[in-house]
């Protein structure tokens, strides 16, 4: 299971809909940020994440008869929303972790900061005059 896998992209485009307009280079940029963050985590956590992504992909098969990456966006969103409200801490936490990585990959790009109008500058007030 890699960050370029269909399931990661399926989750990413649900969490940040704008990511569905990404070209290959933008996906690569996002994947590189996430890969760097994962590489710095303990091995056990890396294994848990890989396992959770597999579960994410196959879980919907039981309810919707399709894998997550094959679901339409509305059903995908519904499924992920259920996960984040799950009574099981393990599922809530797992989804939270993947969601955090997606947001890091997306909003960690300098282009995203510019897109949302974030303009912090070391020169502070002087840069706004």
């Amino acid at each position, binding site marked *: 299971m890699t960050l370029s896998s269909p399931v990661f992209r399926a989750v990413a485009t649900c969490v940040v809909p704008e990511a569905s307009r990404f070209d290959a280079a933008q996906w690569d940029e996002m994947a590189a940020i996430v890969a760097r963050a994962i590489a710095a985590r303990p091995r056990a956590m890396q294994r848990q994440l890989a396992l959770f992504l597999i579960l994410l992909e196959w879980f919907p098969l039981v309810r919707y008869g399709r894998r997550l990456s094959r679901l339409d966006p509305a059903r995908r969103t519904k499924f992920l929303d259920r996960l984040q409200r799950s009574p099981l801490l393990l599922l809530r936490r797992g989804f939270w972790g993947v969601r955090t990585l997606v947001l*890091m990959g997306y909003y960690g790009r*300098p282009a995203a900061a510019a897109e949302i109008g974030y303009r*912090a500058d070391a020169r502070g007030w002087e840069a706004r005059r």
Partner: protein
Amino acid sequence: MSTSRSYDIVIIGSGAGGGTVAQELAPLVRDGVRILVLEKGPRFADQEFTGRELEMADALYQDGGAFLTRDGTMTLAFASAYGGSTVVYTGTSLTAPQRVIRAWGVPGLEHADLTRRSAKYAEQNNVHALDDPLINDNNRLFVEGGRKAGYLVEQFPVNVKGCRGSSLCNLGCPNQAKQGTNRVQLPRAERAGVEVVTRAEVLRIEPDRTLTVRVSQKAAGTKGAPSEWAPGDYAVRARIVVAAAGAIGTSALLLRSPLPAPRSLGHGFTCHPALILVAEHPRPITNDVGHPKSYFVDHGASERFVLETCMYFPFVTAKSLTGFGATHSAIMHALPRLQMILILACDHVASGNRIAVSRTGSPIVHYRFTPETIDGLVRGTRAAARIFFAAGARRVHAPADPPLLEIADADRLEERVTASSFRPGMLAVSAAHLMGGCGMGRTAADSVTDAWGRVHGLPWLRVADASLFPDSLEINPYLTIMGLADRVAEGVRRDLAVVRD
């Protein structure tokens, strides 16, 4: 094979506690006392503080700022650098409340004494209230909304000198305006002859007062200067050891050392769990320019929360919002119109909330939210929403179902914001004020150290950081850490004089 070194005093950590002790003991160098500070993190050059979010978080924070509690429901932020967490705080400098120090009930620790010592560091670090022209809209709206909603809004004294308003305090000031120990106490100590070695991690302390120290190599392409010592393992002998590696660092170090430490070591961990809330105004406001944290509302005593102004960076803001998808994106794209408030819950010592170590000696923090702490977050969220609406915000993004509170919801916040939306694992809760683990008290039966930071039964071993707090401080802790560290330094000077006589 390790290299041996010998010193009279070794200080572990260079943040608010270690930096203060180093400065206070520095005059002893003139009398031939050899003093060493060992800092796990690197020493950064001024130009390395770029303000770029992920780059600086990786360089400065443990686990890039994502150190997780054992059950994965809260992240803990603490820095590893020359100057410790004083490099990354916003410089807010408050004196410990009298009611809190009284409630701690540590024999020999008086509020008046702590206040006097804290005042010394407030003066040294140029602590003052920012002038009005430097206050941005994000802070001004908090004041206006807070007062309209009936709250007592107070201004934070901050320790800046020549603040240009970059708003990047939590990523290390790019203008060297913040007067942390990296700018004030450590340079003074070094000028007086104290040796500071960075990238030096203390693995354990032996009962014969030998420290096993590992000095790391600077990895290619990373920030920070190489260590002052050659990379490798060292056996450092000391007559007196002062542990000031922060609540987690110090507790973990003592836990993995073969010392006869008191049984409560690692227990009593508290941390002010915090939530970031945002609200959308109809027009752009100045929020990502100017000092981010200038005002607060303290309801710690009555409702277990403190509200503070804040402004975070794109990724931290994104992960702090509840939910995902189009609503989440819309709020992120409203960033130039967002007002932000940080809610800190005043948690208290709870059984089971403690610091432990793994088989390999890494720190593990066990933390569960008590119903009282969740209640503090819920009440704080309602109060923040009242302030946002009173300030003119048209919608508030909060842990609620659905997460957008509209103006029409302002009169029914009790109904809209409830504990059911605050389940662990559903929220991005993080904490930066990490306290306890080596609490002060009377004897080894009820605490780890005495009121002077002396570990019970090990008079040569002192603690000088927030791990000393026997319970939550309920406010930003740096001046209190410095005040306590000042006492530790005085105790060391006194004991050293007795030994020499």
